[in-house]
Structure formats: C-alpha cells, structure tokens
C-alpha cells in the first residue's frame, strides 16, 4: 500500500505483530514472587546477627546437654574415689599413676565436686534439666494460656469477667507462697501416684520435676492468657470473623483457624521470652532446695551447692552461674530478634 506522506496513519509493518518470546514476556512482569508471612519473618531474622548468634549458642548448649553426655566417659552420679575436690584439669594420685602406666585418662575439664563426681558432666546434665524445664513448662503455659486467653476474649461477658478476676488473684498472691505450698502438696500426691501400677513413669521422671511442671502450668499461664486475650479482643472485630460466622463456622473453629493463627507472631515471641523466665524460676526453686531431687543436678542447685564452699572452690560456682546467664541471655536475645522479625506492629 502506498503511503500518503501527509496522513497520520501509523506506519505498521508485519514485524510488529510477531508473537513475543518468553524472555520478552518475562521482562514485562513487574510483580515479584509473593512473600509469605513466614518467609518474610525468617528473612528478617536471618539478617539479624545478634539473634542468629544467640540461636547458634542455644544449639551448641543443646548439643552439649542432650548429645554429648551419651558419649562422655563419666556419668553425673558416679563418685570416683580419691578424686574429690579436684581443680579443673587436675588428676588425682590414682589417675596420675594410671597415666604413668600409659593408660588414657579422660581429664576432668571442670574438676570434680566434693563427692568426686566429674563436674563437667554434672554441668551438662544440669543444663539439660534446666532446658527441659524451660521448654516443657513453656509448652504447657503456651497451651493453657492461649486456650484460656482466647476463650475469655472471644466469648466476653461474664466468662471474660470470671477468667480475668482469676488472673488478677493469681497475680496478687505472692507466687513464692503458691510455689512452695503447691510443691509440698504435690509431693505426697505424686509419690502416692507413683506406687500405683501404670504410673511408674512418675518415679522415673522424678516427682519434684513433675511438680515443678504442674506448679508452672498452674501459675504462669496468666501472663500468656493476658497477652492472647488482648490480641484476640482486637482481632475478633475483623470482618473475616463475621464472614466465617456467616458461613456457619463454630466458635471453636473460628478461634482455632482464624484467631489463634493470626496472633501466631505474638505467640512465638511470648513463648520464646517465657522460656528464659521458666529457667530463671526453676533455678530459683532449686536454689531454695525445692527443685529437682538429688543426685539429679540442675544449674540452680549446682550454684546453690557451690555457695557453701565459695572461698575454697570458687570455680564450682562460676561454671553454672555463667552457663545459666548465657542460656537466659541467648533466649532473651533470640526472643527480641523474633519479635523484630515477626511482630506485624513493628514492621515499619
């Protein structure tokens, strides 16, 4: 077709109508891949050096307290005759003689205590107990706290009123009174329970340890419940809750599927920060002599035993004291990192 030089007709040629190649198509896509809540949070968490460092510390402590004891040549309750009160890396006369004879003697990295038990393995077992208490107690607190808190917030009215008054009262009674009274009360009950066939495991786990779990579960869910309640009070006003209800969802389903999943960020953070505080409380209890039963050590009881011999054997105190501070510090820092990463309110 001949083109008129004065016409405004655009000059098209057949090349303009060739199908675009895949590459060309891709260059036009301006959307990036959608980022899920988890990916987004994790990315921010990984960038946070302090949080990652504390995560590594926690993993190392866990390896030392859960895996290493299995391969360690000493056990936490074996009393080695003749090697009482050794300083770190010191050998007893008998062990020196065996070394002379060409035998390999595993060194006592942190010395031994007054009964001749290797202190390094006792520290490892102690941190195992402390971590277990921290993790299990927190798991129990998480379950009770989030269920009670969400029920209080979701149903409101007199249910909320009653639950919150209970929370207030638990806050007001000095917790040390409840802890001591409950652990006395539970001791007899649990010891009675242990004799009933089928409940032999109670003795294996240790009545003191179980009573610590129960006491924690009964006392410390209140903080978690308050936290969850305040979140859900806000969330339940959202349209999707009304929509879910209109579609015929039951209250349980709404709480489980819509409300709790939406405050998962807060739950993670509160849980991580609850772990150090449980460890803290357990060490305090062990310090008072209400913690785990001998010969099982926990970091608190190791520290409290070491105080009596502080002048002569100060290193017996420093190891558990340092370790417990380190564990609590790392969990706190990790919790802060998680909050920065997952709390939607802090996003900007």
């Amino acid at each position, binding site marked *: 077709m001949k083109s008129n030089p004065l016409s405004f007709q655009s000059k098209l040629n057949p090349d303009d109508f060739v199908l675009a190649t895949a590459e060309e198509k891709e260059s036009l896509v301006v959307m990036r891949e959608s980022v899920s809540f988890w990916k987004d949070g994790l990315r921010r968490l990984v960038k946070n050096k302090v949080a990652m460092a504390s995560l590594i510390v926690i993993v190392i402590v866990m390896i030392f307290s859960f895996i290493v004891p299995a391969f360690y040549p000493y056990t936490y309750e074996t009393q080695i005759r003749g090697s009482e009160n050794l300083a770190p890396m010191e050998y007893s006369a008998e062990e020196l003689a065996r070394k002379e004879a060409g035998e390999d003697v595993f060194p006592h990295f942190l010395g031994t205590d007054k009964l001749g038990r290797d202190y390094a393995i006792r520290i490892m077992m102690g941190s195992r107990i402390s971590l277990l208490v921290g993790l299990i107690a927190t798991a129990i607190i998480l379950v009770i706290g989030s269920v009670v808190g969400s029920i209080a917030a979701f149903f409101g009215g007199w249910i909320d009123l009653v639950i919150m008054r209970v929370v207030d009262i638990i806050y007001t009674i000095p917790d040390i009174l409840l802890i001591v*009274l409950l652990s006395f009360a539970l001791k007899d009950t649990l010891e009675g329970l242990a004799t009933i066939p089928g409940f032999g495991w109670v003795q294996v786990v240790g009545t003191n340890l179980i009573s610590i779990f129960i006491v924690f579960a009964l006392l410390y869910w209140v903080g978690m419940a308050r936290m969850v309640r305040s979140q859900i009070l806000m969330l339940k006003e959202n349209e999707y809750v009304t929509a879910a209800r209109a579609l015929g969802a039951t209250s349980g389903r709404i709480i489980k599927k819509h409300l709790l999943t939406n405050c998962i960020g807060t739950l993670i953070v509160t849980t991580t920060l609850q772990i150090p505080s449980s460890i803290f409380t357990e060490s305090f209890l062990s310090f008072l002599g209400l913690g785990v039963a001998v010969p099982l050590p926990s970091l608190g009881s190791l520290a409290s035993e070491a105080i009596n011999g502080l002048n002569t054997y100060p290193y017996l105190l420093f190891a558990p004291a340092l370790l417990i*501070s380190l564990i609590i510090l790392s969990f706190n820092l990790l919790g802060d990192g998680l909050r920065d990463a997952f709390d939607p309110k802090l996003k900007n």
Partner: protein
Amino acid sequence: MIKYIIKRLVLAFVTIFTVATLTFFLMNMVPGGPFLSEKAISPKAQAALEAKYGLDKPLFQQYLTYISDAMHGDFGDSLKQRGRTVSSIIATKFPVSARVGGVSIIVALCFGIPLGCIAALNRGKPVDNIISVLSTCGIAVPSFVICTVLMYFLGVHLGWFPTFGLTSWKHYVMPVIALSFYPTAYIMRLMRSSMLDVLGQDYMRTARAKGLSQFVSLFKHALRNAILPVITYVGPMTAYTLTGSFIVEKIFTIPGLGGEFIGSITNRDYTVIMGTTIFLATIMVFMNVIVDIVYKLVDPRIKLK
C-alpha cells in the same frame, strides 16, 4: 477523682479479702501442719497445742475466727516463735527489708532513667550500644548469681565490704547492688524504648520548631510522656523490693521480711503466713492504686474510670 479513689479502695479491700481467703484454705489443704514436723511429740501434747491455737475446730470456724480477729487488727500469735505476735514480727522485720529495698529502688531509678534517656538520645551510637548490652545482660543474670559473684569478689577476695549483717553503710552496698541490678536494667530498657517512641512524635518536632531549647523540650515534653511505662513497672517493683528478696536476704544474712516469709511457709507457721501474705497483698494493691493516681497526675489526658 475522690470518687475514683474511694472506688479503687473498696475494690482493693475486696482483692485483699479474696487473697486472704484463698491463702487460708490453700494453706490448710496442704498436707502437714505446724506441729507435725521435726521431733515427734506425743499425741496428747499435739492435741493440747492444737486446742490452744484453735486448730482443732472445723476449718470454716477457724476461718471465721481469723477473719473477725484480723478485722479488729489482731493477726494472732506465731505458732512457732513462742510469745511473739505476728504484728510484732512484721513490725521488726519489715523496716529492715524496707530500708535496703528503699535504697535499691532509689538507686535503680537514679541510674535507670538517665541511662535509658542517654541511650535513646544517642540511638545507634556506641553509648547506646554499650547501655543496651548492659541492660540485656542485667536482665539475664539471676539474682543469686549476682549475689554470689559480688560476695566472692567484693566481699571475700577484695575484702572491701562486710559479707553479712546490716549495721553500717558499708553493709548496704552489696545487697543494694544485688537488689537494684535487675530493676535498673529493666528501667533502662523501658525508658530507652518509650523515649525513642516519644522522640519520633510530631509534638516533639513542633516543640523544637517553635524554638524551645533542647533542655526544655526534653524535660517538659519528652520525659513526661516517656516516663509512663516506667511508672507502671515501678509500682509492683516497689512492692516486691520493699518486702525483701528472699535470695538476697539469705545470702547476705539480712534479718528481713522475705526470709521470714519463706521460713514461715516451710515451717507451716499458719498465722505468720497469713499475716505476711495479707501485708504483702496490701502493699501490692495500694502500690497499684498509687500508680494509677500518679499516672493521672503525670498525664492529664488519661481518664480514670
């Protein structure tokens, strides 16, 4: 305001009453009793003792007697410490705890608030980092660790301060450091974050823009708004600290209320447990009322209902 305070006081009374009731029944539900422990006494002597203190009566009647006595200001005699009334025990032990605790609270406030502000004003600079690290570590170290480390280095190793008793100002140094360690760190943290929050507000920019000096804008505008969370924390903290920390009192052998309380629980000294619990709960509840009133004074925008 007056109406609000009266309402809160009535509610406080109800709370204390509930706590007393719960403690009473909980304490009695726990197996064991004040005269069962240590050396075995003859059943007759035990019965006589129980009759003397009214422990042989039905529980509910004991409760009614106790409450009506307590209403008249009579908290009974200690079951374990012969010839001492609960009131006299609290009257001698509480001032000791309160002195150490009071000094610790002042120390915590004097260090915590300024350091937190300094950190917030120098956000991201080395000063801020140092203060943040200090406060994070302060929160992570359990009190018994601080106590024993202080005891070892300052008391035993260097010999600067006496390790037990409470007779001169030197005796106060270590317990006060130990007691104020955690609150100081916590207040620093609270102060830093709330100060950062306030410094980012529009009214701060306005204050600077209209020509207020750094000093006035900081103290009149920023500090007053930023201090609210600290007040919330200081209320219950004061109650806890004034009544003494058991661990600190045990390690430094201070004859305070905290040690007395734990001792009474393990001994099942029922009257002392009740008296101390009511005392602690009262201080706690009143501190909360005071916090709310101070809140209102600091920030007139807050409506008390």
